[in-house]
């Protein structure tokens, strides 16, 4: 049963990452996703200081706001201070992450936040923290419920906002001419990225979030030119990485998050070699 919950958690992170990552990739913002996943740390720490819980909804909101602030800072540095885009990303997330680490060190006594955990998480502990109803029925791990609700929210966002999201992604000028608010969709997407990053933080750590944001989307991008197919293939690749990663980690007796991240790379390599061979013929 533990294996089931762990794989389910990994798959939910993978699905969230694959769907959002596809849009990030097409908007050439993959590294912004990377930046957000690191930069939410100070938000988490500050919210944690107030709520003293890692699963409080305030923590999610606080950290998601930090994520939005991150994208805003990057845009401002890029446009107002004319700092080239990659440097703006690098400067922003390292500064915020450094502040986060310093905050953890400062309030070391009051925060039970393991820094290693922030980076690569402890997905193996997911099944231990379960929700039990008053009637005594075991509802399954808390993390699954959090990630699951983020996933449902994401599906609703995609179903209702598919046109706005895809149009503003492919042709912002045309979308604006049709009356779509491009910056609304930009921040909606960034908000979703921040939220799903934070939701996945405790269980899988920043690194697996980035791996799932980039790997499946990049693989799907090589295999298709249709957005709908890209979303579907990315989701499938994400789940496949989660499942195979779990068994790889089980076999090697190592970190599950690390193995899942490695598997996204392995599947990408297959797709990469395949498209190179296909091109040659």
């Amino acid at each position, binding site marked *: 049963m533990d294996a089931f919950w762990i794989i389910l958690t990994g798959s939910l992170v993978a699905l969230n990452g694959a769907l959002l990552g596809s849009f990030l*990739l097409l908007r*050439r913002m*993959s*590294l912004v*996703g*990377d930046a957000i996943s*690191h930069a939410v740390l100070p938000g988490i720490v500050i919210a944690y200081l107030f709520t003293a819980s890692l699963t409080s909804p305030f923590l999610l909101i606080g950290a998601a706001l930090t994520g939005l602030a991150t994208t805003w800072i990057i845009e401002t*540095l890029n446009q*107002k*201070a*004319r*700092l*080239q885009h*990659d*440097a703006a*990303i*690098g*400067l922003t997330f*390292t*500064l915020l*992450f*450094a*502040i986060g*680490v*310093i905050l953890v*060190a*400062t309030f*070391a006594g009051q925060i039970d936040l393991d*820094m*290693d955990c922030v*980076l*690569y998480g402890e997905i193996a502990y997911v099944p231990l923290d379960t929700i039990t109803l008053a009637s005594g029925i075991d509802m399954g791990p808390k993390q699954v419920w959090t990630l699951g609700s983020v996933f449902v929210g994401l599906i609703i966002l995609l179903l209702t906002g598919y046109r706005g999201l895809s149009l503003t992604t492919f042709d912002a000028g045309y979308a604006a001419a049709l009356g779509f608010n491009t910056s609304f969709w930009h921040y909606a997407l960034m908000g979703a990225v921040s939220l799903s990053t934070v939701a996945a933080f405790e269980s899988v750590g920043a*690194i*697996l979030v*980035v*791996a799932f*944001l*980039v*790997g499946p*989307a*990049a693989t799907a*991008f*090589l295999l298709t030119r249709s957005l709908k197919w890209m979303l579907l293939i990315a989701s499938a690749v994400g789940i496949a990485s989660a499942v195979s990663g779990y068994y*790889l*980690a089980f076999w*090697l*007796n*190592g*970190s599950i*998050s*690390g193995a*899942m*991240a*490695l598997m*996204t*790379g392995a599947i*990408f390599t297959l797709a*990469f070699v395949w*498209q*190179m061979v296909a091109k040659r013929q």
Partner: protein
Amino acid sequence: MNSLSQFLTLSDANVRYVVIGCVLLGISSGLMGVYTLLRKRALIGDAIAHAVLPGICIAFMLSGVRNTWVLFAGAVVTGSLAVYLVDLVTRRSRLKPDAAIALVLSVFFGAGILLLTIIQSSGNAAQSGLDKFLFGKAAAMLPEDLWLFGVVLLLVVVVLFFGYKEFKLLAFDKGYAQSQGIPVKALEMALSSLTVLTVATGIQAVGVVLMSSLLIAPAAASRYWTNRLSGMLLLSAIMASIGAYIGAFISYTKPGMPTGPWIVVVLSCITLASMILAPNQGVLARYLQRRKHRNKILQENILKAFFHLGEKRDNQALAYEMEVLRQQRDMPVAHLKSGLRSLVRQGALLDSNDGYQLTRSGLEAATRVVRLHRLWELYLSRHLNIAPDHVHEDAEGIEHLITPELERELELLLDSPGTDPHDSQIPYTQKDRNR
């Protein structure tokens, strides 16, 4: 204050190692960062820093010892591999460099974490401290670490010095460098290798995540102060060492404070300050420049309004109320008021009971703007064959920008004309005629 003097004089051996180590690392990464920034590869450092981890783990698994040089060798191998893979994926697929960097970074790091946990579960006693690479271990620097940092810095300085001209061409104009027969591929390899070496040493001080800051922040800061490569290199190295020194000091004053993050915070503050305060390219300087230009346009437009009013009445010595001016040229009252105030202060206008009136210098300035406007209109219609009713808008903009030299050129080209395309007089004051 005992701690401060101890720190400043580096009398405590532990402090000495930390400070010297951080400064050495800061200088190498400050220098290399300039090139990665100029070549628009600022985040490649992030990919290398993450990719170093599996190399360190493999080197440890193969050798079984925690020797600085052995781990360093492993780090360099996987770091270089990461650079190669980012390049390969970008060249051989539709993926953009940013996606390739993010992909390589996360997969390599995942592999590194997997290996690290395998090592840890194997219970090897020597492995303790291996995970310090994640967040840096500045406080635990050893003399042999310093030797390594020194060797890398020396290598960086020597290579950059002897290849200065070639690297400069490569950084600013790769295509031209190629056409000049410069071995671009080899030079790029050299730069990548040096970057890998720098990152592989740097993560020991600030850790994997924060390494990219050491490459980006000082280089980005120096970019705001100068346009010269030599100046950038020098400034970047100086700022990086200052940042490293102050960061090390702050973490020294409080027990338990991490060194790496403080170095990053100090460096970022230096960069943000440069961004805002640097002359010419800073946000503040550019804002002031823009405001100055806006004020100049506003004032010249007000002067023009005076001139047009006077032209209609055939008398440039009349005074006008604000309302009259606004009827001549519509603009927000607040703008008009502030513009009038500055013109009075400059002595271009006289504030009398009847309203505002042009002084002699004001009339000269007003005449000049109107003249430039009409000269430009004439130029457009005569030499660019633009219909006379289409030239006004363009002249409205250009009249504020034409220099005296350009004005002379226009007069020569148009053969000192008397009237513009709308048959208005092209005005000159007595002073202009005496010229």
